[in-house]
């Protein structure tokens, strides 16, 4: 996979190659070149299968990291393409023309993270959350517990115990024994 990365380096601004396993590697690329790189990987390097496409919220760095996971059936290699996009005004080029099923991932990302993919089909239709009117729930600033407690009639009397202290009290009732 190192050779693949060197080949790509000659053509694209790919950085941060990291090989996790013999058949699994990751690389990063700036947002504007990402679609070109993915198209190149699909058409010329044999990465014809889009395994999944998701986002990770790095709120500390102010970015969403998009992860395009591509698979090559010929060499059985899997390559992850990382693309960092800004959390404010999160927009990315749609890849639904490369893989039709990417449109579904993009609908999910739009709903769960609020990332916009202009031109992607049926992007604004409800996917899982019908009539959601809060900030997208997978963004890390969304407090899911506060939302649930305010909305879903929590049953009173529900207590939560720390497993560590609970088991210590159960097993060693006398603290001196420890």
């Amino acid at each position, binding site marked *: 996979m190192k050779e693949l990365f060197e080949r790509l380096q000659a053509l694209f601004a790919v950085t941060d190659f990291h090989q996790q396993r013999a058949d699994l590697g990751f690389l990063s690329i700036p947002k504007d070149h990402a679609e070109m790189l993915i198209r190149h990987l699909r058409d010329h390097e044999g990465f014809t299968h889009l395994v999944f496409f998701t986002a990770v919220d790095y709120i500390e760095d102010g970015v969403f990291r998009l992860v395009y996971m591509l698979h090559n059936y010929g060499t059985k290699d899997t390559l992850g393409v990382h693309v960092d996009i800004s959390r404010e005004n999160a927009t990315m080029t749609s890849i639904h023309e490369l893989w039709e099923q990417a449109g579904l991932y993009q609908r999910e990302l739009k709903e769960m993270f609020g990332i916009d993919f202009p031109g992607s089909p049926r992007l604004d239709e409800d996917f*899982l*959350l019908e*009539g959601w009117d809060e900030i997208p729930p997978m963004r890390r600033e969304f407090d899911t*517990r506060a*939302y*649930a407690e305010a909305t*879903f*009639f929590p049953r009173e009397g529900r207590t939560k115990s720390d497993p560590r202290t609970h088991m210590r009290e159960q097993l060693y009732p006398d603290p001196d024994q420890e």
Partner: protein
Amino acid sequence: MRRANRKDEQELANDGLTYPDTEYFCKTRPVPVGPQFKAMEAVRNWARANSLAVQAFGTGCGAVELRPLMTARYDAYRYGITGSPTPRQSCVFVIGGYASVKTLKRIVVSYEQMQNPKFVVALGSCTVNGGMYWDSYNTINRIDHYIPVDLYVSGCMPRPEALLAGFVKLKELIKAGKCEGANRYIENLDWYKANQKRVIKNWNMPDYNW
């Protein structure tokens, strides 16, 4: 059972419907149904208890426990329990575990379309207090705030044996005439509707699905 007085009977608002749909649904408020003949009620309840038709609507992970019930190993037919394909032909609704808001909308529609007498068995701890999804943004905590529940089967997940024991208990309750969830729902319709509309934000269906 009280039959609603004609005078204090208000119409349903049906606010969520838009034009063509407003013509298709009636605004009449459902009324509680009491026993037709008091003397016959015990016999009828016995008959009801021995022919339970479970609606084929799997919500959440508990739905996988319903399939083995019908197989030879657990064989729920011994207890007079069978499956039925549509809400209108069934009388038992098994809420199989967690219900997301999207599912809850379908649960309400299916429950209201079921004909009387109808019973609800809530399966698993998710229906009691949210279970492991208690702080999720999309999973309701207590199903009994949205539809009336006649019987809970606790556990995560309950084994098919637990569900069978639950059905046996349900039959006892029906024979004792204690499964009045359907009437409770009609009597407190406004409270249930307010709770449902609080979580189902895109309410685009009639207030009662006849």
